[in-house]
């Protein structure tokens, strides 16, 4: 087991720091969690995530938050490398001195790797003094996966999370599909099968 929680005292509880950049959210968060993130106002605008590119050292002079976000957008998820940790909603907040991340599943074995990958990417880009804090609250939800992240998942062969009773087959587009197992290759996915093209596929669980 590894230490996974380090308390970050500083969830933005409204008002405050203009510099705080809020993580993009594809949909309104249910249950009022969103209020916790209502800092600033203009920070909430929808963020367009550029197409995924491999991590690259960035010659950064300024200390702008945009630059830190750019670095993070280049950090792929270790299990699903087609999406970045930003696409998945793992990065909750970026401040000048710290990045706040949240684990997807409580026991996700990729949690430590993700933190290490972010650390390495920040270091490589010259942000050795930017700390990484992990917070559990509010709990991660698949609602935080960006629209572009969902599109990338689909293109990669993983049906994105959806409340629809059937998944759309990422291979052939059929909706004549069935769940084979409630757990797939990782805790966050279920195993499905297409009745038309007969291919098995993973579906991101709604969470």
């Amino acid at each position, binding site marked *: *087991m590894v230490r996974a929680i380090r308390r970050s005292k500083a969830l933005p509880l409204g008002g405050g720091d203009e510099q705080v950049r809020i993580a993009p959210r594809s949909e309104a968060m249910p249950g009022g969690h969103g209020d916790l993130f209502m800092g600033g106002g203009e920070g909430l605008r929808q963020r367009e995530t550029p197409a995924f590119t491999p991590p690259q050292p960035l010659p950064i002079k300024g200390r702008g938050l945009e630059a830190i976000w750019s670095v993070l957008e280049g950090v792929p998820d270790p299990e699903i490398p087609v999406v970045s940790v930003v696409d998945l909603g793992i990065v909750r907040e970026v401040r000048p001195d710290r990045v706040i991340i949240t684990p997807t599943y409580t*026991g996700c074995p990729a949690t430590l790797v993700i933190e290490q990958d972010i650390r390495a990417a920040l270091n490589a880009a010259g942000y050795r003094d930017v700390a990484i804090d992990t917070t*559990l609250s509010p709990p991660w939800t698949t609602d935080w996966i960006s629209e572009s992240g969902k599109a990338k998942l689909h293109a990669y062969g993983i049906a994105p999370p959806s409340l629809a009773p059937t998944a759309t087959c990422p291979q052939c587009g059929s909706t004549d599909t069935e769940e084979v*197992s409630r757990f797939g290759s990782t*805790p966050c996915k279920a195993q499905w099968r297409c009745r038309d093209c007969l291919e098995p596929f993973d579906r991101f669980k709604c969470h």
Partner: protein
Amino acid sequence: MGGTEPDTVRAEPVEAPSLSSSDAGKKEGPSTGSGRTDSEILFETLLRLGDDSLILGQRLGEWCGHAPSVEVDLSLANMGLDLIGQATHFLNAAGDCEGQGRDGDKLAFHRDVLDFRNCWLVEQPNGDFAQTMARQFLFSTWQEMLFGHLQGSADETIAAVAAKAVKEVRYHAELSAEWVIRLGDGTDESRARMEAGLDWLWRFVPELFEMDSIATEAASRGIGADATLFRDDYDARIRAVLAEATLEAPKDQRPILGGRRGHHGEHLGHILAAMQYLPRAYPDATW
């Protein structure tokens, strides 16, 4: 599918300590409830939560590579992962609360049987697949309700972990309920196995709702949950699933209590032997 048949286990349950001897094994503080500090109550509460998750997670890990199908293998391993994740959070918090320099790893790997605070249900052997699913059903149904209450805990770590994990545990409860129904309302063979599994595990359910002095104090201080509040809901849900599985609830049996005070069966020692061997034999080992 290996595992101990209930009959060979049957010899082992110890006499249940009486509910009033709640301070047996308590090492710190005076024996009256009012003498315990907040942090002592919090530490014990976190250990109970963490040890339940840790031991059941370890048990599920024993199935890895042995389940009836690859899909089931993945399900069991993934549920185990969720539970180990809960344990990591709870035990790290327990170490912080204790303030003696112990972290979650230290608490998991360097305590002995008498210091564990898990309930008896989670340390029961996997048995066959039906017994494993019966255990998961009885535990996860309870844990989902418990975490539902703990989301409002005055302790922010407990509240945060409960709010996060309750979504995962709901999945465990649904998955295991489906298997109870499928096996119970299945063939003669699967039905008999599910009946035997439930019959063996039924005696460990009352402990889940036992409110000893620590649990009572934790609830009164807003840290823990009063399990008696959801006992009726639990019974109703269990009976609804059993009805759908065309099974009758087992007859009530003499409850086995005491895990919360460090009284465990012989099985826990064997679990710890496997789980703790590496960090104890190679204390400086790192990944």
